């Protein structure tokens, strides 16, 4: 099956679910949402510049600190755990600005990139055009409702699972660590995450592969004062969830829903969903910009090697020394900062 027929197959799947293509070439579901590091006005300003300049220059002019998050090839290293071949259909759930979409497209995958935030997708569409990639289809939908039965060879869930139980629009600058009242949903967050993973499982062909990355609930840095990366509160990632919930309600006026997992608990969740042949990996210093990724088996902690530090603040140096001690001396793999998972449907 050639490239056109595979992109046609994806577009037919979108048409069957009543998506409509807009002037930007983005397939719209009608289920709008918002999750972004930028405010809506910042996004509007950013997009307005794209008629006159390219995406990288627009980011350098407006939000230079995001250049690496969006464009760095380091972000795609986790894709090396997969065997994406030219022509494989890949779904990027929660693609945002397209870091992993571009990585999969570069490998020859036919990529369906889904995100609820239209503004992010317009930016991604510009990136794809600049790079002359004709193997990316962009769709706007709430990923919890984006069902594509048995379509894909690969499904990527990169830094998304922990946000699944959130409701409402999220503009991180005015949400992260801020008291923004939200009501708890009737469903348990873990159940919501289970349902989402079930949807991902169903989107894969038989023996299709899911790649998932997430912070470790017991990331050692959380014990040393690094704040929960989703709530900006101390200790909430690893405390019993009932206690984290009380802390969150008191500090942020909303329940604690950004559930993280230990290696074992995450594996159990994924097994319950129906995945098999599960490979767990430890990612250092985190899954976003991994310098070292090791299989989770006990003997593999011995393969831990020193890697370059990003900056030389006393905090970074201390964290590095603690990490080296934990991994090299104590072989305490369960405290690794982030988890990557490769699993078969």
């Amino acid at each position: 099956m050639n490239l056109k027929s595979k992109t046609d197959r994806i577009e037919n799947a979108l048409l069957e679910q009543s998506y409509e293509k807009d002037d930007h070439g983005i397939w719209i579901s009608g289920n709008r949402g918002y999750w972004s590091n930028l405010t809506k006005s910042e996004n509007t300003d950013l997009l307005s510049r794209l008629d006159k300049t390219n995406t990288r220059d627009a980011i350098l002019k407006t939000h230079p600190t995001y250049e690496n998050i969006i464009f760095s090839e380091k972000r795609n290293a986790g894709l090396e755990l997969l065997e994406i071949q030219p022509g494989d259909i890949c779904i990027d759930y929660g693609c945002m600005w397209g870091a992993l979409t571009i990585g999969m497209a570069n490998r020859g995958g036919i990529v369906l990139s889904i995100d609820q935030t239209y503004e992010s997708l317009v930016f991604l569409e510009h990136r794809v055009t600049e790079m002359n990639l004709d193997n990316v289809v962009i769709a706007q939908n709430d990923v919890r409702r984006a069902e594509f039965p048995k379509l894909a060879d690969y499904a990527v869930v990169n830094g998304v699972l922990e946000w699944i139980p959130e409701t409402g629009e999220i503009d991180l600058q005015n949400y992260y660590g801020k008291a923004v009242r939200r009501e708890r949903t009737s469903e348990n967050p873990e159940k919501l995450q289970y349902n989402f993973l079930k949807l991902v499982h169903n989107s894969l062909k038989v023996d299709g592969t899911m790649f998932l990355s997430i912070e470790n609930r017991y990331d050692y840095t959380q014990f040393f004062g690094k704040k929960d990366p989703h709530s900006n509160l101390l200790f909430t990632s690893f405390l019993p969830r009932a206690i984290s919930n009380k802390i969150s309600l008191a500090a942020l006026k909303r329940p604690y829903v950004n559930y993280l997992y230990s290696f074992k608990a995450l594996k159990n969740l994924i097994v319950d969903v129906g995945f098999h042949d599960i490979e767990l990996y430890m990612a250092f210093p985190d899954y976003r910009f991994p310098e070292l990724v090791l299989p989770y088996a006990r003997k593999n902690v011995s393969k831990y090697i020193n890697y370059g530090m990003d900056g030389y603040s006393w905090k970074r140096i201390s964290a590095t020394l603690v990490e080296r001690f934990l991994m090299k001396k104590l072989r305490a793999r369960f405290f690794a900062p982030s988890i990557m998972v490769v699993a078969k449907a």
Partner: protein
Amino acid sequence: MKAIIRNCAHGGTSVISVVYDKKGSPAWVAKSSENKAGIKDILQEHEGFQWYANHVSYAPQAEISRQTENYILLQSDYVFGKSGKHNYGLLRNSSLIISAIMHYIAVWGSWSKNAQNLESAPMHGDLSVDNIILNDKGTIFIDWEHFHVSALPIGFDICYLLLESLWYESRTRHGHISNEAIYFIQHCIRLLSKEGCLSKRFMAKPFRSTLDTFIERSELWGNQIYKFPVLKSPIDCIDIIDQRIRESLCLSSGDLIQ
């Protein structure tokens, strides 16, 4: 299963992974890049592996297993054995360095028999102690990322190996370089020269010439030139060391070693 051991390090644009077999033993090394410059570097590395395999029967095999317009994946055999350690400096790595020199003589010596111009010899480009492996097959050079088939005068790689090892030696000894280290370097230079594997350019001032070559031909290493420690903080007494080597070998400027 794989382990990702390096991700765009030293200003590079490639990801290096180790691929394990079903028993959990390393089977291959995989190197990939999505960057145009990185793709070019990996193609160059493949060329290096092929050149080396044409000259060494037990050289590791490498193949481009996947390539698109924006991505490349090179897989090469994982080489078991013992490599050197930078922090051992020069003298503690001496037997490895001698093995490397003998191997260099065997490979480049064989090349030089049919070569027309020894001033434009093939170059490994990063012959550090951790890129030299000793095993039951012999000595093996790995990591051919900076290979060029026709680049620099013969002997550059060994001069660099000695210079970098000396740099680490001086760091471990708080800047002090022993007479023993100087004698060892003399011995190495003499070995190379005797076998016709050292260009005249490096005979008179081995280390100053090596540093000058780096600077004059920096385009051969691109952005990654900044990873080489000898360039970040050169040894202070490099010219004195060159002079001692020259004096001990009874050389004046322009003379050949007999």
